[in-house]
């Protein structure tokens, strides 16, 4: 690993002031540190944001759950409030990687990184999340731009993620057996009025499957999507799963999620 400067920011303002084109925020470090060790990324400055008090913690109101960006996965999975308000969100957190990863990795880091097979992005889409940054509020639907790409500008810091509490919801992941990231993960959330079917792992970026959303908004039953033949042309193919298999898994996991709601 190449040498770098370490900074610990006390507040958001300091953190974004320190940011430059050759810096990264250090949250859990679960992505940043391994990529630096492998020589895939080099930074001159790492700006630790874990000590910014404002970024940690969970707040639940009647309509939403707001989670600070530097909140660890383990905190989300153990939170009684989250379990009560949106149980599927706490079980999603419980299914991320392994205990070591959950004890350090953060929700903000996960979303900022926008790995195509990460779990949290699907929760953001399914639960109509609002991403609060030090500069603005961004709707989830406009936040995830593409593979490892988000609407964040350089130096913009995620402060919290606000999830809308749905009527019912479930997240079902078919994990990569090695890394346990999602080969396909489907987050189904039934809100008043409409149903979101957020899919991660299948394509280069998380997306809301319009076809299934429509079918389920009409009739919220797994039978209404059973046997659906999804277009696999844009789906990922790698040594763990072909596009064809992923297309089938999207429907299977969506059905499971609906049944589990």
């Amino acid at each position, binding site marked *: 690993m190449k040498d770098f400067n370490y900074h610990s920011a006390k507040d958001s303002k300091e953190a974004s002031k320190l940011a430059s084109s050759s810096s990264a925020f250090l949250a859990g470090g679960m992505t940043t540190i391994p990529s630096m060790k492998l020589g895939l990324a080099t930074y001159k400055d790492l700006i630790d944001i874990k000590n910014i008090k404002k970024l940690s913690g969970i707040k639940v109101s009647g309509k939403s759950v707001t989670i600070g960006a530097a909140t660890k996965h383990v905190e989300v999975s153990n939170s009684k409030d989250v379990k009560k308000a949106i149980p599927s969100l706490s079980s999603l957190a419980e299914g991320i990687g392994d205990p070591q990863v959950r004890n350090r990795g953060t929700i903000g880091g996960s979303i900022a990184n926008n790995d195509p097979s990460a779990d949290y992005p699907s929760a953001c889409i399914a639960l109509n999340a609002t991403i609060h940054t030090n500069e603005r509020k961004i709707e989830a639907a406009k936040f995830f731009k593409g593979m490892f790409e988000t609407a964040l500008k350089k130096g913009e810091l995620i402060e919290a993620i606000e999830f809308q509490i749905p009527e019912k919801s479930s997240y079902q992941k078919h994990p990569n057996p090695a890394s346990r990231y999602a080969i396909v993960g489907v987050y189904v959330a039934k809100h008043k009025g409409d149903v979101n079917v957020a899919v991660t792992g299948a394509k280069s970026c998380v997306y809301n499957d319009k076809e299934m959303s429509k079918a389920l908004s009409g009739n919220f039953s797994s039978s209404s999507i059973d046997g659906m033949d999804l277009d696999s042309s844009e789906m990922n193919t790698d040594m*763990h799963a072909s596009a064809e*298999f992923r297309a089938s898994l999207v429907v299977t996991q969506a059905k499971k999620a609906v049944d589990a709601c």
Partner: protein
Amino acid sequence: MASLVGSRVERKEDKRFLTGKGRYTADINLVNQTYAIFVRSPHARASIKKLNIDKALKSSGVVSILTGKEIADEKIGGLIAGWAIRSEDGTEMKCPGNPPLAKDNVNFVGDPVAVVIAESLAEAKEAAEKVEVDYKVLKAVTSTADAMNGDTIHEGIDKNLCFDWLLGDRQKVKDAFDKADKVISIDIINNRLIPNAMEPRACVADYNAASEEITLYTTSQNPHLSRLIMSAFGNVAPEHKLRVVAPDVGGGFGSKINVYNEDIVCSWAAKKINRAIKWVAERSESFLTDIHGRDHVTHAELAVTKDGKFLGFKNETIANLGAYARVFGTVTPTYLFGPCATGVYEIPAAYTNVKAVYTNTAPVDAYRGAGRPEATYTIERLVEKASMELGIDKTELRIKNFPTAFPFKQTLVHTVDSGDYVAGMEKAKQMADYKGFEARRKESEGKGKLRGIGVTSYFEACGIAPSAAVMSLGCGVGLWESAEVRFNPTGQVTVYTGSHSHGQSHQTTFAQIAADELGVPIENIDVVHGDTDKGTFGMGTYGSRSLAVGGIAIVNACKKIVEKGKRVTAKMLEANPEDVEFKDGEFIVSKSNKKKTIGEVAFACYLPGVRDEMKSPLPEGDEPGLKETSFYDPSNFSFPAGTHIAEVEIDPETGHVKLEKYTACDDFGRIINPMVVEGQVHGGLAQGIGQALYENAEYDETGQLMTGSYMDYTMPRADNFPEFNIGYTCTHATTNPLGVKGCGEAGAIAAPPTVMNAVIDALGGQEVTMPATAEKVWKACKNLKKSNVKAA
């Protein structure tokens, strides 16, 4: 005194390991040490046009940079194959040179071309990036099945063929097949695995200019053997000027048998720079350069009568050796594979033909089970298929072909001294509730799931091995083992063993054996291993040989101690040596109340005199001291055996395979410590189930390792397994005094076919290759649906 052998004695090593006090190679830091980083080929096959170290030499902190040229100039020898195999046509196998640092050609990704030695690890890394190598990239050969049609990797080795070996009689087999009612045939792949010891390889080499001695601390399963090879073939130093220490080693599974490039280079370089050098593999280096395991492509056939008697067996296998043939690389797919491929059955005629090929991949060598998992997979998949095609219950078909009398002369090589395969099968069936399976299958079907049951009966030749036998077959060394048992004057005992413990618990189990033999409390016995300066010599630990060979050497050395003790007691108590009996640590003159404890005898041996008298307790001809050595050469291999039964449930929509039940009923002969044996069985099963369902080393066609990290190489985890249901039948080995057989490899041998037979049973007999990943199984489920629709 109650016997310790057979009881669950707590492990002496646990306190040290569980409190972080283990001392592994990477924990060793020597004064003024330097750090090594190896510059490795990023290409699978290339010639080196130019190698320029000028820039790197100027990098900060660099002490030295050495390349293949210096290695060649100083005639430092390369890595070797330890077993010479002859082809069917009588020609000797063909092995390329394998210099510790490549000079002209690189043959796999990770092949080292230079070593950079610097004051710090960071500086060594920085400088290594500045070493400029100009490669001419050549077309790589990576596929096992097609290797013989690829470009020639090593000059003069036609078709990339190391040997084309035959064991058995083709004509006899042909005659048997001519008489068969039915021939069952199968094409299988034994997937390539990466051993993944928890502790990556490492070495620290030191040079003492005063004594002119090199000391190498390394992650080895067999330090004496490493010294022998480095000295005799590596030309690093004469044996008496080379000390090899393998301290605590965190798992080997065969991957730490070999002497590796880094061991030779660091030892040689430490002398050159007259400073200590430390090298610790990063996990990515382990993936690329540790030996890999398995990698066979096999076509096999079984000739049967219609009522299920086996008549003949054919096995045509291509075995991948990787880029070079290493220590056990050539014996693993031959003598460790062929003889066991007929399994636990009476088959009148059989042959195994193996074509061993070179490819531009990491060297393939012995990995837990070594050859026997491949053999067992071949025959047990075939037998399972036979049961389906003949419509005979899978357990009945096996029993029908088991030998009933022992010794059992197995078709090709071995004479199995003892066993009771029928009893093992019956017990396994009971443990697994085999009868209740159909009900469980229905229950699964009710939930929309597919359920399958799979059986494997296996035997393995281990406790390797009688020296004369293995040397007659081409082995470069004898495979005896040595032990030295040393009493201190005040009565404690140190046992030196040539075996090495890297997870096997020898500190405990070997002490149990010595405690029983000598009647000394186990707290007063220490087991010492892993240092060529301590103990006589040792062939090391692999092939489930530690107990069946090394343990017997300890027993024999203890027996010599007891013999001497009897003579000394007789002299001290003025009795006939023949009248002295030894029991529970006491030498008793029969029909008298005269006795001496073994502690008193030891004391007398070291202090052989008394005040005011000219009197020695030592009989004429006996020297002072109490220390005995034994070199034990076994008279036969040992033959653990057993039956395993697995049940899986498959979700046809996702292809997910859930292992629901796993039963292992093994015959390991006498069991020294049931707790330790359970640990060995669990570990072996984890690796065997890993092979069946999860693990796979995959190269792309250019020779890049696709599964070079844990993000892509699936290691099984605890939540992948059900509670293991473990039981034993214990028929004692008749060829060694303890009656032991060995238990280290059984799980890895039996589990792959057991699990795959269950998966394939659930899939209605459709073949899938290992690992049975979700996508493969999902596809098979889709086919099943289609064919069911057709049938309906």
